Structure formats: C-alpha cells, structure tokens
C-alpha cells in the first residue's frame, strides 16, 4: 500500500491505496467522488475525464501515484460558489445529455477544449470529441452546447 496525496477540487486529500490503483478508482472509491465514471476498460470512452494540472486526462489511463502532488479537478469541482460553469449550463440549456453517464467526461473534455481552442467551429468540436463516446444524444446537442459555451466564454 502507498499513501498518495494530491489536491482535488481545491482540497488536500490523502489516501492509502494499492500501488496499482488507477486515478479514477482513487477518485471514486478512496475519495467517494462518484461523478467521474468508468465506461470502458480500454481508455476509449472518456467517461472518466478529469483535469490534472489544468489539462483533460482520462483518469483510467493514469495511476493515482502519477498524480501525486497534482491539482485535480473533477466534475464536482467545476461549479464555483454555487454558480454552474458555462459549459454545465450549456449542456442543460441545449439538452446535451440524456442518461447522464458520459456527461461528466464530456463536460470536462469540453472545458479543456474551449481553453485550448477559443475559436471553435463544428468540425473541430466533432474531431476533438473523438475520445468521448455518447450512446444517447447522437452528439448533435453536445456539439451545439460546446459551441454555445465557447461563444459565451469568449
């Protein structure tokens, strides 16, 4: 067992876990933050995307130990002072979610995408979502929501 410490959603956290523990399991099981989801076992679906030091990362493709000392933000930490993030608002406003399972990963990916590429167009959004699978929405309204949020945040 290894003690792994990091900052998650602005709070210092620490947990004693097996060395093989993935970051996603550390977040879900050790910290009880179940907003981050596991949808596959091959790092394809993107339901587990969180931010590590400001960048979108698939938390199933990283050991908890690799995030030692890092600043991690999960979907639970996105809203500030009770105010939803513009991307969260846009997903609701544009019906960018149905069952909600892929949503945390989609939102975290979108926030990072808008940060990296403030000038977005539909084709870019579609290509950038390559690593996030949604089975419900046909992506139509996810794309709309991300474009709207990007416009809002410009």
């Amino acid at each position: 067992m290894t003690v792994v410490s990091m900052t998650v959603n602005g709070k210092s956290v620490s947990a004693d876990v097996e060395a093989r523990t993935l970051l996603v399991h550390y977040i879900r099981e050790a910290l009880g933050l179940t907003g981050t989801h596991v949808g596959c076992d091959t790092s394809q679906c993107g339901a587990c995307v969180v931010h590590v030091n400001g960048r979108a990362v698939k938390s199933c493709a990283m050991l908890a130990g690799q995030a030692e000392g890092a600043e991690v933000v999960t979907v639970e930490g996105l809203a500030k002072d009770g105010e939803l993030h513009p991307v969260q608002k846009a997903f609701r406003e544009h019906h960018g979610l149905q069952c909600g399972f892929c949503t945390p990963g989609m939102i975290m990916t979108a926030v990072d995408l808008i940060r990296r590429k403030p000038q977005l167009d539909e084709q870019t959004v579609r290509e950038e979502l390559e690593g996030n699978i949604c089975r419900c929405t046909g992506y139509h309204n996810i794309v709309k929501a991300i474009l709207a949020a990007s416009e809002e945040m410009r």
Partner: protein
Amino acid sequence: MSDLSEQGVGKPVRRKEDFRFITGNGHYTDDISRPHQTHGYFLRSPHAHAKIRKIDTRAALAAPGVIAIFTGKDIAADKLGGLICGWTVHSKDGSAMKVGPHPVLALDTVRYVGDHVALVVAETHEEAKSAAELIEVDYEELPACVSLADCEKPGAPQVHPEAPRNTCFEWELGNKAETEAAFAKAAKVVKLDLVNNRLIPNAMEPRAAIGEYDKGTGGYTLHTTSQNPHVARLVLSAFVGVAPEHKLRVIAPDVGGGFGSKIFIYAEETACVWAAAKVGRPIKWTAERSESFMSDAHGRDHLSHAELALDANSKILGLRVKTIANLGAYLSTFSAAVPTYLYGTLLSGQYDIPAIYVEVDGVYTHTAPVDAYRGAGRPEATFLIERIVETAARETGLDPAEFRRRNFVRAFPHQTPVIMNYDAGNYDASLDKAMEIADVKGFAARKAEAARRGKLRGLGYSTYIEACGIAPSAAVGSLGAGVGLWESAEVRVNPTGNVEVLTGSHSHGQGHETTFAQLVSSRLGIPIDQIEIVHGDTDKVQFGMGTYGSRSGAVGMSAIVKALDKVEAKAKKIAAHLMEAAVEDIVFQEGRFTVQGTDKSLAWAEVSLAAYTAHGFPSNEIEPGLKEGAFYDPTNFTFPAGCHICEVEIDPETGVLEIANFVAVDDFGTIINPMIVEGQVHGGIAQGVGQALLELGVYDGESGQLVTGSFMDYCMPRADNVPSFRLGFTKTECPSNPLGMKGCGEAGAIASPPAIINAITDALGIRDIEMPATPARIWKAIQSSRPRAAAE
C-alpha cells in the same frame, strides 16, 4: 411564481434531472456502496462450446480476501430455477418453441464465450478477480456452431439437445396461398437477399448489481441497472425462486442508458442477490466493458430472402419473406418475440400490400443471447421493406418517392395482412415535408457538382412505420406474451398541495422526470418544481411494466392521465363541499376550483389541505386524503411513422463516405416536450448510422471467439461520424390513447439504416451493399462494379 404557460405540454422545458448529472451528483448503481459490502466477480467461459468435467476452486478459496465461490452445482443444490423467456412462440405445426434450459451458472456445459461458470466473492474487486484466475476448470472443448447460414444444416454442432437442428421455432405469419396467388399473377418480381448485422448495444453505463439480504426480516434488496425493476422482481421471485415477491425489493436508480439491453433478467444480478444470503453480506458486481460485450444481450442478426410481386403499374401485389434469426445460445427474456411478433407484423411498412407471407426460423448458435435492441424487430422489418421497395423502384424505372406514393396506405383504419391495424397516419405529408427539407429538387445539381470534384453523391429514402406502446395486454397475451403490457400510475397529493407521481415507467435518459411533470403541471396548474416523479423502486411503486418499445408516453403517461382524472373528481367533490355547491357546478381550471357562474373559488393548495384536515366531511360521502391510482391498458398499438432522407458523398478512391445531409420527418402524434423528442430522434439516428456504417458484432467462425470484444474493435459512432441532423414533424393524433401520443424513442434507429444504404447504392449505382458499409466494403463494391460499368 413561475410562468406555468412555459412549463406545460408542448413546451421545450429544460430537464429537471439535469442538475444532478451535470454536477456529478447522479446515483448510478456503481456509485452506491452498501455497509460491509463484498465484491463479486464472474469467471466466464473462454470457450464457445465445452463440457465442464470438473471445477477445482481450492486454490482460489485460499487466495487473499476470498469469502466464497459459487458454481452451478451450488445453485442446483438450492433448487433455484433457470432464467426464462417470457414470450412463447409457436411453430407452423402448432408446437411450442423448443427451449434449452438456461442455468444461472453453467451446470455441465458452457455455450458461448462469456457464459457464467463461477461467482467469486471477495473483500475487494481486485481480490475477487485475481482469485478467479486460480479456479481450475477442466473443459472438454467441443465444436461450436457459429454460422447463422449453416446452423440448421445436418452435422452442425448442436447447442441444445432439446432443439434438433438448432431450430427453436419455425414461425409463420400471413396468408401463404393468397401470397402465392399474388406472385402467380405478378408482372414483375423483385428479389433481394439481406443481412441485418449483429449489434452490441453498449449503453455507456455497464450493467451492475448489488444484492443484499436482511437476516432479521428475511428480505432481499437488489440494486440493479434495469429498465423494468418490477418485471425483474416478478421473474426473480416467481420463476427463479430467489425470494417471494413481497420479500424482494428491486431498485433501479439512475440508469445510464439501456436501449433494450437492460430490460432482461441476467445471470449476474440473479447470482448476486441469491448469494448475498449465503455470505450474509451485500455483494456488488459491476461489469467491465469487456463483460458487457460478452454477456449483454446482442441485437438484430438476421439473414433474409425477400420477394416483392408487382403489377404492371408498380402496385405491390404481395411480399414473401424467409428469415433466419439468431437467438444466440440461450433464450433471453423477450428474445422469441423480437424476430416474430415485433418483426413480421411490421413488414407491410407504409404500403397497402394485399398479401404477405413471412417465415422465420429462430435458431440457436454458440454466441451471446440476442434480444431486443433499440427498435427490436422493427428495424429489421423496416430495413427489409425499405430496401426492397427502393430496389423495386429503381428496377421499374420509377422515382423512389413516386413508387412509394403509388403504394401508400391512405385510408384509416387499415388492416394489414400481418395482424396490425394502422389507426392513423399521413404518409404523403411526411414524405413531402422531408423532400422539401432535404431539397430533393436540388439533388441533381449537387450530384453534378460533386462529380466535378470526382465524388459520388447519392440520395436514399426510408418511409418507415413502427408499432409502439406494446400493448394491449389482451392482444399480446393472445400472441404468446407471459405478461400484460399495461402501465400503472399513482398520484399522491400532499396536504401542502405539492404532488408525487409514482409511475411504473422507468427513465434511463428519456427525461420522464420532466415530461411527466409537464403533463401534471398542465393538468393541475402547479409548477413542475412542485411535482416529483417517483420511479424505479418496487417498494415505492406498486407495480409497473417498465420502459421499452417507446411505451412510456403512450402507455405510462396515459395511466397518469387516468389517475389525474380520479384526483380531479375527488378534489371537485371536496371543493363542492367546502363551497357548499353541487359538484356538477365546480369547474377546475388553471389550478382553481370555481363554482360556475359565481365568484366563489378555491386554490388547488386550499383544497389539498382540506382533503387532509377533513373537517366536517360528510363521512359517508367523502373519505379524507387525496391519492388515486390507475392502471391503463391501451386499446391498440401506436403507429409512429415518417420519412428519413439521407444524402451521402463518397470518395471513389478511398471508399470514405460522408453523410452530407440527413433529414428526419416524424409523426409522433402529440409531443409533450419537443426538445426531448428531438434528442431521442438524434440518438436513434446515430445508432442507425452505427448499424449502417460502423458496427458489427463478429464471432470467429471456427472458434466462436468474440472478435469485437472492446471499443478498440467494435466501432461505436463518434462525434465526427455523424452530421448535425435536420428534423421536422408532421402530426396525426393517435386515436387509441387519451393524449394522442405515439412514441418517439426508437424511430431514429428504425428508419435510418435503409435511408443510408439506399443512398450508398444510389451513389455507387449498385444493387446492394452489406451493413456495415465500411470504407473497405464501399471501396470493394466500387472496384467490382467498375469493370461491369466499363463493359456496358
């Protein structure tokens, strides 16, 4: 006070459920942990077909953290029943379908890769998984029957001794003699062989279960990823015998998509809830995605031969169809119904076809069970009829839209030769509107322009019909269903006037918490945030049939309407008493009870409170309280219909395809929330695009190994595989339910595949291409059609 006019029926109300999902506060089964829970892991068969000679669990039992290991023998010793198929189909000769037993854990034979061999229970998931590797199973490998085309042939390996030639049933529907007579007088016969490709549902939330047992009460609780928790409880109690129904609580909390795959009662949740009593602690199991691929029920997988008889004016005289439908290794919960009563009954499409005869052989193979997947039988029927109609149009030289118009049903009700009685529709209207949105008039110019760029452009139609609501109980009962298909609702009005609505429908992405609340808001004149929709818990909702077959609006909401009728009637009685008026004089409008022709009135909340204070009620006339329930059984199926038009552009050098335009015009009858309905159509079309272009469940023909067992190998639609869709709606109200609703959940997946394939065959000038039409298949089709084109 919120503006109620913006919250009611017909408005694009933003979803009530979204807040918890966008903030990470949903409660899916795997998010739940029970005190002292253990973890279950299933050892699965690595072979498609093998005898189990011996299972040695000694080393595994000694591994760290292991609490118990269960095999099929333990389940048999406990006299637990097997998993069932709830729909009995009969063969042409009148005999019932031949059912091979489906043990919860394999007893002496494994029949597909992923079949359940043992349940390991340990302190952690990792310990259970590691210990499973220490179980020694002595298998005698046997040849596997994988090929659908060959499985009924002599010498094919047998899946179940109960079903000779692997044939579960040889079903027929329609009139054979009349159909043969129609073909005898035909001016032209069009023939087509079709493959409806095997799909793997892949809801994004993998299946999961937590079984627990309370020694003190003898009660069991099962949290599970289910679309119909009450049906799960009924099957687990009445058929499997895990616990009596009143001692089993099934909870389906937030469920991350289903698409049919979470209707069924599977081995995993059954074993977890059963074994929880044995170990005396809760057992949690969550599927890894590889397990979902192996053991979720798959969809489609048909081989068909179809023939269409035409007269000299291209009027359809008859249709005959022979289909072999893969059922997999065991019958799943509703699998027998899917390729029969949900398929053959829709083969008339939107067309007036005087004679239809369809034969379906349901067959066993050494592959995962096949059952309902979004559309369930109706996509297979629509693909067949829309592909052969398009082919017939091209071969008779008629414009495909004109060919369809010559054959549309225009008088309602319309009795087809295959059971269904279409109650309402306007197929010209949806075709017209789709052609307008798709700018079909401008297609020739776009095709010419694409040709100048060296690209091939094609246009394809699909004018579909489906049957939803599933429903009515008497009809499905006469066709072999083991259950009634009504729905229940209960409206509980609290003393302060807010309302809880308990429904037997289950939401796993459809937004019932919003749409159902919109209905209640419109009816009672209270804002939607004062209405709670309660679902998914057998301890709260008395009974319900669940959500599938696009039935929650047409059937589930109709039950709510009936319960609201009763609530209103009782509330009027109370209002009449309070205002000393005759009940006939009470008018209820916009949340107020008024004595007609006077200024005397009471607000909804005043009457609600009075219902519970009950002061001065004439006790023989008014009972205290305000709570009413209803069961609603529809009088007919509903018939959503419409037209999808797809335009594709293909690069002949690479076979790469782009969907240049996709238009869907649907007639769903009354729409409660257009935003949610559009979302349902988008998602359905994307799954149809997946079937037509990307997805294929592949088993190795020899070994029966699942080749497409992960998202690395099975091509799910990504955001850049689909375009933005262009939608339109037409409306004919459904006459068979009080809201005039038809259902919208499956139309996209049903209608889109033939539109796409029709567009590809149009672009390439070929007769057929098999789904999924991948770039490799398209490129090959171009190569093989080139020399012929040159020779011509």
